[in-house]
């Protein structure tokens, strides 16, 4: 079965065609500059047979992008699509499981638009376009939030009045579930144990968004993101955790302009807002040695080394502070989740998993985050960590009770697996881990 996976961004459409169940990748690519005209023309970068080809074509919306992708696959490459897997960021309370698309879903699906205003509307429009154009092609909605539907009430409930929690559907949903689920399953394989026995903390550290997930017996029990993807770690342009009173103060300062505050917290804060120069933490790391916390929690940044760095065109004080805050928050959440996992499992976690761009490629980040975690039984091996030969890799010391695993995430493959499981199993719903709901 050839499963076409769509990952819909606000102005892009990533896709991958996989032959299932072999997981062989047949093609992939990305439609860029989807939507209103921009300075450069819209185009599709299509990868197949080891090469890449660019197609310049007008794509005023995601429906048109989808049609063009289907045309390329069929006309240029001659491959059939047997099913579609759609990534949906937010399923709200209505979609706790991945779901086969049929006529009954639309009302509930449309109600999730405002939960993720940047991501859900274009993805839902794409699902509708696919159904209208190819009504007989089976399609599955794979929700990032589904993996977190197992978060228990004590971790997922905010201490807010019941009318806020119930009428407004405000609770912790959690995000990056597809990735956390995928790398957890891969970690279980590496450790030679069934997913149902895995206790771990998964660190999805992307160059954009980032979250940690506490996993007990293969199920998510907590995620640093919350009602929205804003809560938790500091990210490239998102502030992460922030005192609610500060949000109110910002609202007051901006004369009640919600959009201005939303933009400030989501698009102008985080690494970009603090450093004042870049949204990518790797740029900051290149210029900074993270003296402050790389030695554990012993000392503040050495003023002399800071001055030397600046003289040599290195990190500015703002960059140094940005890096310290970025890594410190991950470290604190890692400690919290290692404790929470052990508390629920009755024994220490099996592993800490690092994934996505920063988690997979930046050894210094992993080293700083894991320094001082010996009390939890986590000891990273500096050599293995800085130079893993290939991924996946275990970069912990031999006698580390908690393993440190670096695993490449593959959300498209995870979506294809979920899609295949639902369609081939003849079931309309499966749980996030692929089992029957």
């Amino acid at each position, binding site marked *: 079965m050839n499963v076409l996976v769509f990952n819909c961004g606000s102005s892009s459409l990533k896709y991958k065609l996989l032959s299932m169940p072999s997981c062989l990748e047949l093609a992939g690519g990305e439609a860029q500059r989807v939507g209103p005209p921009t300075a450069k023309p819209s185009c599709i970068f299509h990868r197949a047979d080891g090469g890449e080809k660019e197609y310049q074509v007008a794509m005023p919306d995601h429906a048109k992008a989808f049609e063009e992708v289907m045309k390329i696959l069929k006309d240029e490459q001659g491959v059939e699509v047997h099913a579609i897997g759609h990534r949906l960021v937010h399923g709200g309370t209505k979609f706790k499981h991945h779901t086969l698309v049929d006529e009954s879903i639309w009302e509930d699906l449309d109600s999730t638009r405002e939960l993720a205003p940047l991501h859900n509307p274009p993805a839902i429009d794409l699902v509708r376009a696919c159904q209208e154009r190819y009504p007989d092609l089976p399609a599955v909605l794979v929700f990032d939030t589904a993996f977190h539907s197992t978060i228990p*009430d*004590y971790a997922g*409930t*905010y*201490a*807010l*009045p*019941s009318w*806020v929690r119930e009428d*407004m559907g*405000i609770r912790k949903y959690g995000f990056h579930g597809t990735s956390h689920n995928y790398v957890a399953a891969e970690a279980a394989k590496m450790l030679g144990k069934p997913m149902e026995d895995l206790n771990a903390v998964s660190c999805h550290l992307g160059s954009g968004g980032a979250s940690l997930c506490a996993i007990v017996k293969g199920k998510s029990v907590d995620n640093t993101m*919350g*009602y929205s993807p*804003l*809560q938790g770690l500091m990210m490239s342009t998102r*502030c992460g*955790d*922030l*005192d*609610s*009173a*500060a*949000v109110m103060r*910002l*609202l*007051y*300062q901006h004369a*009640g302009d*919600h959009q201005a505050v939303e933009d*400030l*917290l989501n698009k102008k*804060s985080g690494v*970009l*807002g*603090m450093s*004042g120069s870049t949204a990518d933490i790797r740029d900051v790391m290149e210029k900074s040695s993270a003296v402050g916390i790389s030695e554990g*929690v012993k000392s*503040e940044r050495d003023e002399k080394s800071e001055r030397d760095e600046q003289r040599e065109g290195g990190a500015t004080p703002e960059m140094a*502070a940005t890096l*310290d*805050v970025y890594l*410190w928050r991950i470290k*604190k959440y890692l*400690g*919290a989740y*290692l*404790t*929470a996992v052990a*508390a629920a*499992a*009755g*024994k*220490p976690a099996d592993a800490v998993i690092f994934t996505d761009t920063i988690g997979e490629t930046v050894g210094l980040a992993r080293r700083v985050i894991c*320094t*001082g*975690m*010996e*009390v939890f*039984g986590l000891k990273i091996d500096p050599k293995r960590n800085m130079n893993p030969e290939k991924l996946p890799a275990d970069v912990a010391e031999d006698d580390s*009770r908690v393993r440190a695993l670096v695993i490449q995430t593959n959300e498209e493959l995870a979506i294809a697996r979920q899609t295949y499981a639902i369609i081939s199993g003849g079931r309309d719903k499966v749980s996030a881990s692929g089992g029957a709901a």
Partner: protein
Amino acid sequence: MNLLILKSNKQDLEYVFYRGKQRQSDWTVKRCPGVDDEKLEWLASLKQISADCEAMADGAAVEAVALRVPFGGTVFRGPTLVTSQVESKLKDLIPQAPMHIPVIMNLIEACQVVFAGAAIVLVFETSFFADLPDRESLYGLEAQSARSMKLRRFGFCGIYHESACRAAGRRQREDGSRAVPNILSICLEPQPEISAVRGNRPMMVTGGWTPMEGIPGQSNCGEIDPSIVLALSKKMNWGPEQVNRTLTRESGLGALAGKAVTLEEVFGSEKPEMVLAQEVLKYRILMACGAGVAALAGVDVIVFSGRYRKLAEILGPYLQSKFSAAFGDCQDGPDYFVLEDSLDKIVADQVGILMRSVGKQAIGA
């Protein structure tokens, strides 16, 4: 020394009086009904309090007045004797704490009238956190907004935390250790707060720019997704004041239990409606402690303080067992103990130290 300790709580003025080290009364609430002007109200209340104190001191005058101050920013780093310079610095803090500082300034003024000649000492809840490391105190906000509005983490139960950590250090020295202890300080006030402290230096604290952040309190929501504030404001078409009222007065453990509750009631009842509140609180405390252990790279001792410190009987063994699981290898969880000192005892000690250090004569002058 005859010491009067005051704290203002919304409209009420509470006081306790010490002769030497002997406390002469429980906290007493004084309020003058029918007086609309705050300054006049403080004056009237303080005159009554002065008479009460003189009666308790066999006619002797109050020699020092201590005021507990909830907020001192990063300016005030310890107990501070009031001078005109101090009043000026306090005034500068009004934009950061518009609800608290004007009240304190009026109270100082009234004290200067009623207790002329007595030393007036300010004891700040935030002093302990004045040197919180940047990595802990900074928010991931756009720098200009954070700077202009002075948005940073402060911490708000510093008086208890500082005393708890001193006690932990003393115990460690008594046990013959000269190592600097890693301490988890758990202050069980109506708005609980947890701090991870190395020796006497805080490395992490759950309180934030205001006490709203962190662990949920009796009526306060604690940490929530920042987006929820915007969602609430948009959905209800509310301004910041209305959102603030919901998050600080109608939320917290009471909202989870469906009625107003104290921390003690949450843990002391097995009623079904208390289960969620109890589980949420325990989990959030556990998470904060786990973060604290990571911040310190270990933990030697847990100290409980605050008016609900007796809950250590429940939370102490709970945390020990969970940390025992987290640390593995059959390690016991960290020891814990309870700081039995009340807030006024701690304040009295601090004022005593300050007055000895500056000299009684100098203060009187």
